[in-house]
């Protein structure tokens, strides 16, 4: 038995680690994808005043604190039985859509994009954002930096801080915006829409016009038939901030559409002793192990999942591209994991259009921004779509609003089982008896999970966006036969 370790892939907290075991024929016997850390938020939030949780749970993730801030504030609304005024809801949604546009930008250009823009088997030293800039020109690189700068500026105005926002409170927001601020944000949002259109065009020019890439996207090695999950509005269109969670089966038929308060009827979590992270699954289908298909409760919650479950996008430009994607890829649902990148740029454009609509709404500069809770706090669930999947915060308190129980099902966690499956399938497809495992092989395995924009790569949202990897192939005695570093 040979043992290949990929350690570390950069991180959730600390890092992720992949172990690949080969049998004596040199074929993949099994793979294990491990998460090495737990911080225990669910337990140490107990005893805290519930209104503090939107300011504590942001520290679960410094890359997507907005998602935790929003899910937490919505859970607090539910705990206090209070409905924020329209202006407050719109300000939260404005913040959230601007965040989505910025976050998807960073992933597309710095993390996932380089595989396509520079090429999946290009030299590792080139396959990063700097390589992207070399390939597409400094002007585009500058646009990406400007997009990030502009979104962070808007987030600081709306959220109080650009990282770890503070303005969403039970029943609304702590601070409104002035007409001048709205005018300035509107100018930014117009720029975001143009950037979204530009990105869609770039995706067509670089990826879709290259038959090799299209073949790669559609190859069986990067495909899984699973259930899909995502929030939809009352018209079954994609919504990042609010709505019901819709789940469709591998044939695209609706399995269930549930309200946040019903999540426990629908989601359970399985524990394995070799990792700190749990495996969520669909309760009604059941845990059948790390397998895909209709009998397995494994589901995916990603940009592609959201488009698979919805009947359409909430904005016109994104809707046109949504139709184009499903037409090109052969209808819904799309099982090709790498098509997640296409779905992501469609969401980027939609978030930008949505933000522009919201900031132009006359309500946005309203001054009624808080509903002060008057009822006895009890229990509540808040759900939003994080960029990396459906995010659920569930709190129960005593009659004074002191937290007694917290349960969290976090974006990337939803995808722990499918990411494990994708790694396994890619490894089985790429590592064959007698074939040399090259650096390119390694990157192709990485591409299998990079499409999920996993939160252990959350922070890999950073500059060159290349995960450091070491892959070791060992024989049964543990002797290293081959080592690849990058």
């Amino acid at each position, binding site marked *: 038995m040979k043992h290949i370790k990929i350690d570390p892939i950069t991180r959730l907290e600390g890092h992720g680690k992949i172990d690949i075991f080969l049998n004596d024929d040199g074929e993949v016997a099994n793979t294990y994808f491990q998460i090495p850390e737990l911080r225990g938020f669910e337990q140490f939030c107990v005893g805290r005043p519930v209104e*503090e949780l939107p300011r504590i749970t942001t520290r679960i993730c410094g890359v997507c604190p907005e998602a935790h801030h929003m899910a937490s504030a919505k859970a607090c609304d539910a705990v206090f039985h209070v409905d924020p005024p329209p202006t407050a809801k719109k300000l939260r949604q404005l913040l959230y859509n601007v965040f989505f546009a910025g976050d998807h930008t960073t992933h597309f250009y710095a993390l996932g994009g380089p595989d396509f823009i520079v090429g999946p088997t290009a030299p590792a030293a080139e396959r990063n954002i700097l390589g992207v800039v070399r390939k597409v020109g400094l002007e585009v690189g500058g646009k990406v930096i400007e997009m990030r700068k502009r979104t962070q500026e808007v987030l600081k105005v709306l959220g109080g801080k650009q990282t770890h926002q503070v303005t969403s409170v039970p029943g609304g927001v702590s601070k409104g915006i002035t007409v001048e601020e709205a005018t300035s944000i509107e100018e930014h949002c117009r720029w975001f829409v143009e950037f979204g259109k530009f990105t869609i065009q770039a995706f067509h020019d670089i990826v879709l016009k290259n038959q090799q890439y299209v073949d790669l996207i559609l190859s069986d090695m990067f495909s899984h038939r699973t259930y899909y999950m995502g929030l939809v509005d009352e018209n079954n269109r994609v919504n990042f901030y609010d709505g019901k969670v819709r789940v469709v089966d591998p044939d695209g038929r609706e399995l269930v559409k549930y309200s946040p308060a019903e999540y426990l009827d629908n989601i359970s979590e399985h524990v394995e002793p070799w990792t700190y992270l749990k495996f969520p699954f669909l309760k009604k289908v059941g845990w059948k192990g790390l397998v895909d298909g209709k009998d397995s409760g494994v589901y995916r919650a990603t940009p592609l999942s959201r488009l698979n479950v919805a009947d359409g996008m909430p904005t016109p430009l994104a809707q046109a591209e949504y139709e184009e994607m499903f037409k090109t890829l052969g209808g819904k649902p799309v099982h090709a994991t790498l098509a997640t990148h296409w779905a992501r740029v469609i969401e980027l454009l939609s978030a930008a259009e949505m933000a522009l609509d919201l900031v132009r709404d006359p309500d946005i500069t309203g001054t009624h921004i808080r509903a002060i809770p008057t009822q006895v706090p009890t229990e509540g669930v808040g759900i939003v779509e994080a960029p990396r999947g459906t995010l659920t915060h569930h709190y129960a308190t005593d009659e004074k609003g002191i937290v007694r129980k917290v349960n969290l099902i976090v974006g990337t966690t939803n995808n722990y089982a499918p990411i494990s499956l994708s790694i396994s399938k890619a490894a089985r497809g790429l590592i064959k008896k007698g074939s040399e495992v090259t650096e390119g092989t390694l990157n192709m395995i990485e591409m299998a999970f990079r499409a999920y924009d996993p939160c252990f790569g959350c922070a890999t949202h950073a500059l060159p966006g290349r995960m450091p990897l070491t892959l070791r192939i060992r024989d049964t005695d543990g002797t290293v036969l081959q080592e690849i570093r990058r």
Partner: protein
Amino acid sequence: MAKPKLALYWAASCGGCEIAVLDLHAKILDVAGAFDIVFWPVALDFKYHHVRAMEDQSIDLCLFNGSIRNSENAEIAHLLRAKSKTLVAFGSCALEGGIPGLANLTTKAEIWEYVYGESPSTVKQNGGVYPQMHTAVPEGAIEIPEMWDTVKSLDQVVDVDYFVPGCPPQPERIWEVIEYILSGKPLPAKGAVLGAGEKTCCDECGRTRKEKKLKKFYRPFEIEADPKECLLDQGIVCMGPATRSGCGALCTAANVPCRGCYGPPPHVVDQGAKMVSALSSIIDAHEPQEIESILDQIADPMGTFYRFSLAHSILRRVEKQ
């Protein structure tokens, strides 16, 4: 002349410190130009074994963020200390445990029992399955690091030269620190706090203060605070008086109270104790019993006064029987 060598690392953290560095925007290219970045797992392909192979003290500056919460965090802290001339605790978690340090109000056993057992979505199989450091699987053995019972700050594990506070440190302050180091000016005395002010958060706050006389405290959700007056004057617990300046009082400008992420002010060891003394002096009562009953209105003094600093406070953790 060779460029100075820079390393950045994260232990138990959220990634927000890394984002704050990226929020230098175009200036990040200046950083990349001025330094030879020899280790930055988030961005570059240098690995632990590369660091192990370096000469001791060969890294000129290491910015270390995150608290120390498991065996791997500690191992890398020791490694980077040995390899670095100057080691900086960067951000609240490395400085004082940060929000992950609130886990010192509970225990590893309690966390595991809840997360892997009692949580309402978790399927508890045959009395419970819990993570184990070594697992024998049919094909061989696989390992994960050991989680600690107590969260520690970086300086509780290794010797630290400087401290940069904030959750996260504000990008403008980070740039000041980097500019200072690049200027070649002599470094401040060991143990100095960099990238922050020498006063309290109140000194940066634009709200109007009066002579305080408090008889009643409100929780932030209970009232709509006046946007111009001091929050503490309005009876909302605000950590401003017990917090170092440096952030620009962003939270109070957003009409929410300070929670103390820039750590204790100069010459104060324990932020929570400082807050208790600050509150005692502004309560409109003289009898100890009355003072106590007013202070009792504060919902969660431990989790509020020590929101970011519990692991580094004189308490360090709550002992559970």
